[in-house]
């Protein structure tokens, strides 16, 4: 055990530092991405804990770990694991392994937004999972005023082998907002907020609309702490809602 603690201590201390609080990524802590990849040759670990509450069942706990690598200029790749534990089912799920690719097409130039896209492939490693979960996300980031920014994410999701009663294709959209807090006197934190609408996977269910609010804070030259809360505020055709979802995370670059 001591050795394990020592190894984890060494790992953390050697990583303990460049993720950038201004560079916003899905899950940390809300659902939207900005249109910028991590830097070329950057390596980053992102750790997150989440708690999803539901009206009709007990909460679900999630623990997401993602590794990213700046493959080339404006491009990164990632691999993520997100085991979960369902309190109502009293069992855990190793979850799908997600492999992602992000490509920043252009930065914001004059009045034209920054544009990017990302593709994620979920491998069916989770309990009862079948087929591949594919997601294509188009991303635009544009200034709003001087320092504030809006981010539009449009998602097309597909499962290659949907289960009975499940949709093969779903769509979603997130409108994100970010605002550095404290300028011009401090430069280490960004407020984030979003409004998302996501089509349910279940045929017959409609859309879920949600809002989120969070904060990303630089805690060292290489590390960012994030915290966020999301609430599903409406659903159509009986789609399941999560009244509150908490997320807390820590990202380090090295």
């Amino acid at each position, binding site marked *: 055990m001591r050795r394990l603690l020592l190894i984890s201590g060494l790992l953390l201390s050697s990583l303990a530092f460049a993720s950038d609080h*201004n560079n916003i990524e899905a899950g940390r802590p809300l659902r939207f991405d900005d249109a910028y990849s991590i*830097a*070329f040759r950057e390596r980053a670990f992102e750790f997150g804990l989440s708690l999803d509450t539901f009206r009709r069942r007990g909460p679900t706990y999630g623990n997401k770990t993602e590794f990213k690598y700046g493959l080339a200029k404006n491009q990164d790749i990632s691999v993520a694991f997100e085991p979960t534990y369902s309190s109502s089912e009293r069992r855990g799920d190793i979850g799908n392994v997600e492999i992602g690719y992000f490509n920043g097409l252009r930065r914001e130039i*004059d009045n034209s937004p920054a544009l990017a896209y990302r593709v994620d492939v979920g491998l069916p490693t989770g309990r009862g999972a079948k087929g591949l979960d594919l997601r294509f996300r188009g991303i635009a980031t544009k200034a709003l005023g001087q320092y504030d*920014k809006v981010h539009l994410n449009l998602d097309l999701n597909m499962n290659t082998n949907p289960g009975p009663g499940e949709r093969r294709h779903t769509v979603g959209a997130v409108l994100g907002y970010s605002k550095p807090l404290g300028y011009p006197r401090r430069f280490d934190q960004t407020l984030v907020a979003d409004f998302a609408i996501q089509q349910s996977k279940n045929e017959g269910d409609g859309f879920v609309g949600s809002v989120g609010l969070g904060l990303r804070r*630089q805690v060292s030259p290489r590390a960012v702490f994030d915290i966020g809360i999301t609430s599903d505020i409406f659903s159509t055709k009986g789609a399941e809602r999560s009244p509150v979802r908490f997320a807390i995370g820590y990202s380090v670059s090295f």
Partner: protein
Amino acid sequence: MKAITLLGITAIASLGLAQDHSGHQMAGMKKQTELPAMPRDMPAWLAAPGADHLFYKAAPYNWAINRIPKFAKDMYATGVGHAMAYEALVRGEASTLETKTFDTINWVLKNQPAMPVDEGAISPTFLRKYGYLEKVFDWAHTLHFQTIDVFAHPGWTDEQKEKEIERLWAFYEAQPYAITGLPMNMDYLDSFSYSMKFRTDYPKVNGLFWGYHWLQTVNYDMLYRVPVKDQAPQYEVLGARYHETELYKTDRDFMPMTAEMSPRFAKRFPQIANAFDNLHMLHDNVNDILAQPQLTEAQKQEQVKIAIYRVLATTHISETPGESEGKENSLHDHRHPPSMPGMGWMKGSEDDIMWMSGMGWMDMSACSHCSIPMPEGNPWGATVSAEGWTMMVRCLMCARDMAGETPGRAIIRAATNDPNRLLVLISDEEGNWTSNIDGIVFLEKYGEHPECSGWSRAFTTLAALEKYVSENPEYKDTKPLNLAEWAALNHGTPDTYRKIDKPNPYKPGPPPAKGGGR
């Protein structure tokens, strides 16, 4: 010894020749009247739409700057100034630069962030218009920080650090945004129709910029080959000087040059010193372009791209330092003072003789105190940092006596008998010295100045001094001195000292009464 004496005579003769020029008008470049035209071979990346963020070289020394917390915070704060000023300029708020923007920058410089600042996030409007320029700045700033980190890293020897600095330079140079490490003609780079606009119209903000260029360059001699434990104490002196004086100077003739502030580092890594100076000159060019109200937005965009082009490494491929034949006072003039390869060609320079702001005309090949040529090879003598300048001297006596002539605190960095142990002496306001080496002993047998690097030396141990004396019996009757005994000596200004008496090439009027041109 004969050789040293001969060198001394030669130096005095050459200084005499230099003095013959007094009264002559030093030829500086005339300001150009036409805007520079867009070159045909502009690199394609300037039009590339990507953000192209680059990560620094992964290494164990990254962020070692935080081992000197006050210095690290001051360096982080420097990221704010240009970003805020550029943002104000592109948002049409130039009229606030000397008031509101100055106050805001100054507040940050006094209340520094604890972590590095994302300059692009502070200047989003500027970034949308001049994103290609940010790539050049960011990459050069990365080199700045990483070289500092290497020197501040406690785990490596000086030799390992020097090799890593060379690797960092290769890592930096591999990107198309890299600024050339060749010396450039600073007079030429400051001769365009828009040149000097910013420093003339916005002297307070320009003072801040040049103040932190002072900080960004003075630190290298504070760190280079200095044991990590002896770095932070020097910053107590330099940091105080930075906050009290250097940030608020509005009377500099020109931006601080790396070789003026850190001559030891600039001699060892001339390509990096030159790249930093070329970077700082690019900053000045951009300031001037953005501050020029007569230029249209399109003209500003074009001129900023041309300014970038001028200093890119890719613009000067296959060119060599020192080369200028037929290209004097042009973009491809890479002359440098013969004894200082890490310094571009300055206004009015003649070989090693150049004008240093606040000091007057200095000969970079000679001791700043006794005017005798610097000895070749190691030990290289010492440097003295005081009143914002850093000067090279031949020996410890010259260092002490020069520091003694200067008010305020001073730092001496001197060679010892051990090439791996640099002596760092720091004085308080009263001239009381402290040493980083316990038991340091000095040899000083006052004699002819051309031989001072032989009879004025420091030794890490008494045994080392005795060994030196046994090899040099002319010192056998000389009493070893401890720090207090040595510090109590003072031989004043040596009779070999020669003032170079010529007018300031930047401004009319007499040269300064003190300093090298005293």
